[in-house]
């Protein structure tokens, strides 16, 4: 049988920039089972379907190096949560992915240096954070579980893993001046 299941739905979501992960059934299982078929299909349209090593899927962007408007905000938001997690005395990954977060309890405005980073990307209050999280929700990096409560989804690894790697290499280069990040 050649017909690819849930093809229209998968395409519709991926084309919007969404990352399909384990939360997105039945599309996720379909992609896992027949990744090569889907990738071949989309390649005919000039689209590259990426299967991330952490097991989720997305379309490779046309211009991988162009920085979308919202990305700097996401990067700052992510860096702060990772930096905060590094000081919690437990695995950063577990801290990020194994719990829910309340927007009002986030550490992003708790420290002056965090607030300064956010000001640089024009995020001034929790409403700005919520707008940012809404965008991350649209691309499948976080999921709202209540009006003020969210959790990170597996595709957030795209930022999380890089953030860790860059922070650690910066720390190694300048141990005294870099933020403390532990794995």
């Amino acid at each position, binding site marked *: 049988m050649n017909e*690819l299941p849930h093809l229209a739905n998968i*395409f519709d979501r991926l*084309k919007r920039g969404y990352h399909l992960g384990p939360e997105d059934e039945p599309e996720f299982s379909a992609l896992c089972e027949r990744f090569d078929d889907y990738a071949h299909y989309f390649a005919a*349209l000039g689209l590259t379907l990426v299967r991330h090593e952490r097991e989720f899927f997305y379309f490779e962007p046309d211009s991988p190096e162009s920085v979308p408007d919202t990305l700097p905000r996401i*990067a*700052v938001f992510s860096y702060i949560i990772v930096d905060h997690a590094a000081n919690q005395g437990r695995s950063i990954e577990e801290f990020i992915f194994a719990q829910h977060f309340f927007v009002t309890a986030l550490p992003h405005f708790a420290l002056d240096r965090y607030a300064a980073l956010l000001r640089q990307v024009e995020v001034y209050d929790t409403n700005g954070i919520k707008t940012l999280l809404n965008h991350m929700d649209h691309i499948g990096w976080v999921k709202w579980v209540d009006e003020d409560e969210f959790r990170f989804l597996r595709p957030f690894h795209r*930022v999380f893993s890089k953030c860790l790697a860059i922070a650690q290499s910066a720390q190694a280069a300048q141990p005294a001046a870099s*933020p403390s990040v532990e794995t």
Partner: protein
Amino acid sequence: MRYIIAENLIGVAVGRYQNVPGDAAIALALRRIIEHPPEPPPVLEFAAEKGNPVALVRLRWLDSLLDTVGGNLPVEDLMGWLVEKYPERDTSDVLAGFSALVFHRDFQATFTDGAQRAYDTANGKIKASPLTLVST
């Protein structure tokens, strides 16, 4: 394996409207933050010293002496008046004040025939003949 694209997908061009950041873009955005954290703007110190400079305070005190002594004329014993009114002033200040008043054009200073006296300042002692100060 063969698929009929047109059956399933309408408006493929819409597929170009992705908002997926590439790995390079993510890394670039993160590097800008981690490797180049913002530095607070420099604070411009408009006042070189937070408190009043000592020399300025002294100068203001000397200037104020003119009005103060002007309301107390005639002063029979200028040095005695100074050490009594400003007991916290040291010898240097008292002598500076004395000189400023003695040589000011608005006042006339005259030594009396009295015997030399000793005047206590905050940090020493001055021996001098009494001097009368009047308005010119």
